[in-house]
Structures are given as C-alpha cells and as structure tokens.
C-alpha cells in the first residue's frame, strides 16, 4: 500500500488535474464561441449532436443548442485532420514548439491550490498537488517558459509572418513579465507578515489564507490591475494578441501549423487562460474564501472540501468569462502601444507601488 500512496496516488491526482484543466480549457473554447455569438446577437455553435444523448427528449436538444458536444467535435477534428508539415520548416524545432508551448501551461498547475480540507482536528490543509513554499516563484518561472514554444514556432516555421509573430511575442512576454513580477511583490510582502507562526513565505496557500477578511484586490488594487493587464498580455489574449494578430500576420507564429500541432497551441492558449485565471483568483480574489469578511461556510471534512473547490471553480469561470468579455469588447493594441504600455506605464507604476508598500510596511513596523 505504501507504494500505492507514494507513487500511484500522485499520478492519479496529476492525471485527474490534467483532465479537469484540459476540459475547462476545451469548454473555454466553447464559451468563447458562445459568448462572442451572444455579444454579436448570434447563437454560436448549436448543431453538434451526439447520437444517443442528443436523442433524449428535451434534454438532448437543449444540450445540443448549448453546443456542449462541440468541443468533442473540435478535438476530433484536430486529431483527424491531415497533419501537414511544410517543406521549408526546421523540422525538429517545428515539431517541438507546440509541445514546449503546452508543457509549461500544464506544469504550473502542480503548485496551484484549489481548495481546502479541514480535518477532524480542525487543521486546514490545502488541496494541491505539491504544496511548496515558493509556489508563486514556481509559477512565474515555469509559465514564462511558454514563450519559448511561441518563439521556436515563429522561428522554425521559416517564413516571415510566423517570424514576426515570434519576435513580437517574445518582446511582449519579456516586457510584461517584469511588471507582473513586481506587481505581486507587495502582495506577498503583506501576506508574509513576519508574525510568530506565520510561515507563509511565497506559498500560494498562505496567500489564500490571508484573504479570509480582506481580498487582496481591495487591499492592493494597483497590484491587481497591473497583474490583470500583465496576465492578459502573458496569455496573448486580445487586446494583446500581437503574436497572432490574424489581420496583419495571418496567424502569427502558428501560420504554418495545422491539425493537431495547431490544436496544441490552441489548447495551450486556453490552458494559460485557465491557469492565469486561477492564479489571479488565488492572489487577489480570495481563492476559495466565500466573500470578503464573511467566513467560509464550508463544513469540515470532505463536503467542505468539495464546496470550497466548487466555489473556487466558480470564481475561475467568471474570470474566464471576463477574459472572453474583454476580448469581444476591446480592439487590438498597436505593437508600439503594447510596448509603451508595458515599459512606460506598467513598469514604473509597479515599481512605485512596490516602493510605496515597502515604505508603508516599514512605517507600520516602526510604529
């Protein structure tokens, strides 16, 4: 049995986690299409039907109208399309690029807490695959690796539009990484208050625990704003989708990609969104805590754990919706505007915010 707990259980947990995140990513695509449809007075996908489930009276047509089977069809399409590798690409890197793009997106979730479990003795445990002290550092480190996939894709495709897309993407990632990192420092400075017994450090679970009263979005609005913008930029979402920008670069870095390889990029983007949403919820929206100043009504034990997870998911869903909502509201920035915003606005702002909070903490400590 030790063997099972030591090796098999983590694997099962990991696979479950991947399945959940990937399904959310898949259904984010559906959500994207549905929401964009509604915003434009359309209906979105409402035709794909499964043979047996779709035939159930009332429920079947309802699910079909919602387009719930559409991600399945999309996924199958990616799988079964002819996989063309153009002759002029650098083959090894070309094939490696989509894998490099999706691996960081899936890796970051290892340290992501998604609920809490209060055991019989009243001790609160995080629900997380690996509860490490430097969670946020891990996330920042790994997620910035994602840019290598895009840069490699742009370069190895060996044609001009992907190349431009790759360049834009790397420049953008580097620019916003800075502001992002700086913006969350005050959060952890407040969260890791040097009090006796507080060993939170850079632990994400600790950050959530701190937010039982105030949510950090209320406490650190500037940080939240900078982080929010940076997350949009890091995930290459509108209004920052410089790397794709289908109007001027056709498809940007993935112009030369098709079928399953393109599918990997596609899923990676949505996985990034899911993870980005989760991180934002953890850092600024109180994680699985119920509402500001209202103690979590979750009971102890398994039921409470499930409820906390569901509440956490609900917040993530809202945030995914927010991502989509912004995409269908704002137009794309020009490339120079993206750079200006990153370097001349967000970075100074983040630095100023950091200094201000440092002074504030120093002042509090001296008093």
């Amino acid at each position, binding site marked *: 049995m030790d063997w099972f707990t030591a090796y098999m259980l983590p694997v099962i947990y990991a696979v479950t986690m991947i399945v959940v995140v990937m399904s959310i990513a898949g259904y984010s695509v559906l959500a994207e299409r549905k929401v964009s449809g509604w915003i434009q*007075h359309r209906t979105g996908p409402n035709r794909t039907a499964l043979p047996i489930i779709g035939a159930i009276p009332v429920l079947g047509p309802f699910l079909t109208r919602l387009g719930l089977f559409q991600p399945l069809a999309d996924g199958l399409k990616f799988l079964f399309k002819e996989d063309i590798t153009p002759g002029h690409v650098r083959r090894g890197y070309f094939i490696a690029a989509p894998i490099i793009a999706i691996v960081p997106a899936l890796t970051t979730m290892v340290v992501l807490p998604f609920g809490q479990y209060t055991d019989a003795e009243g001790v609160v445990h995080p629900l997380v695959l690996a509860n490490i002290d430097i969670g946020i550092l891990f996330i920042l480190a790994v997620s910035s690796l994602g840019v290598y996939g895009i840069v490699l894709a742009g370069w190895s495709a060996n044609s001009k539009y992907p190349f431009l897309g790759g360049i834009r993407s790397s420049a953008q990632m580097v620019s916003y990484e800075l502001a992002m990192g700086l913006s969350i420092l005050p959060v952890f400075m407040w969260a890791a208050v040097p009090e006796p017994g507080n060993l939170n450090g850079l632990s994400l679970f600790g950050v959530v625990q701190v937010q039982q009263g105030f949510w950090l979005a209320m406490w650190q609005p500037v940080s939240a704003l900078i982080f929010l913008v940076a997350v949009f930029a890091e995930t290459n979402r509108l209004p920052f989708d410089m790397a794709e920008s289908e109007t001027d670069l056709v498809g940007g870095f993935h112009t030369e990609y098709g079928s399953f390889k393109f599918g990997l990029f596609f899923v990676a983007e949505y996985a990034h969104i899911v993870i980005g949403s989760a991180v934002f919820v953890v850092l600024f929206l109180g994680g699985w805590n119920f509402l500001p100043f209202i103690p979590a009504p979750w009971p102890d034990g398994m039921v409470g754990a499930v409820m906390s997870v569901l509440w956490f998911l609900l917040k993530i869903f809202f945030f995914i919706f927010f991502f989509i909502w912004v995409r269908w509201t704002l137009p794309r920035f020009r490339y120079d505007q993206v750079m200006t915003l990153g370097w001349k606005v967000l970075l100074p702002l983040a630095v100023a915010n950091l200094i201000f909070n440092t002074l504030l903490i120093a002042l509090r400590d001296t008093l």
Partner: protein
Amino acid sequence: MAKTKVLERKPLSLAERTYLPQIVTGLKTTLVNMLRPSVTLQYPEERPVIPENYRGVPTLVKDPNGREKCVSCQLCEFVCPPKAIRITPGEIADDADTAHVEKAPKEFDINMLRCIYCGLCEEVCPEEAIFLQDVFSVSGYSREEMINNKQKLYELGGTLPDRHRKWDKKKAAELQGAAHH
C-alpha cells in the same frame, strides 16, 4: 479654396488617459448586447422571407394554358453579360395547338456556374417568359449538373399568371378576322 478651420482638441482628463472608464463603458455595451436576443436565422429549418422582387435562379414559366411562353427570340442570350444562356431555336409543328406562335426553343440551357443573377434576361424578355424567382440555393456535383436545361427550367418556373394574353388574342383574331375574304 475653402478655409480650413483647425479645431483645438480638448486635453484628456486623467481618468480618460488611463482608458479605464472607457474600457468599463465598452464592457457595459457588450454586456448589454449579450443579453439581447439573437437575430440568427436557423437555416435550413427556418427559411428567410423572400420578397416579391427577389432575384433568385432564372426560370422559364408557362402561361395559364400550359403553353411555354418562351419563343426563343434569343434576346436574353444576347443581353446576358456572362454568356450563361444558350438557346437553340426551334419551330412549332404546323398541326400543334400553338402553331400560330411559330417559334419555341428546342434547347434552352442556363449555366448556373456562369449566371450572375443580374436579372437582365427577365428585364429584356419581350414575352415575359423568363423570371428570376425565389430559388436561391443551387448546388451540384459536376459542371454538367449545374447547367439547367429546358425541362429543369420549366420545372423550376411553373406557371405564372399572364396579364396580356397576347397569343390568345392573336389566335382569336386569326380565327374570326379573315372574314373579308
């Protein structure tokens, strides 16, 4: 030369320069629109309402007597900008009921791969025999299939009312008019 008036732009306020209020306004707009009903027509289950003067697939029509109205004058063939129409004229047999019309198309082909739905054929037709009616969706597996022959054109066209009854009047006149001889 008209005098150019340079308008001073109002400087942006601080709130405007952050863009944030504008973004919020934009989000509000899209949210409101999202809650409105969709205008999508679920084709092919739901069909659009075709207006009376719609220019769909060109068809040949018969008059209420079942006589084919086309007399193969070939004006449509002449006027057709993409040369989609091809007519082989023919003669109506002397013993036929409509012998007084003398002329009818032997073959009448409209190549729907060429047709641009301009409606000039309908406009030019002196016999009101060709109409662009309400069929708007055509498809086929081969080029040959996309050429509507005479039989297909009459199937599509059906019978339309005839306001003039020119040939009926002509026949009546021919039957009783030779009285002076």
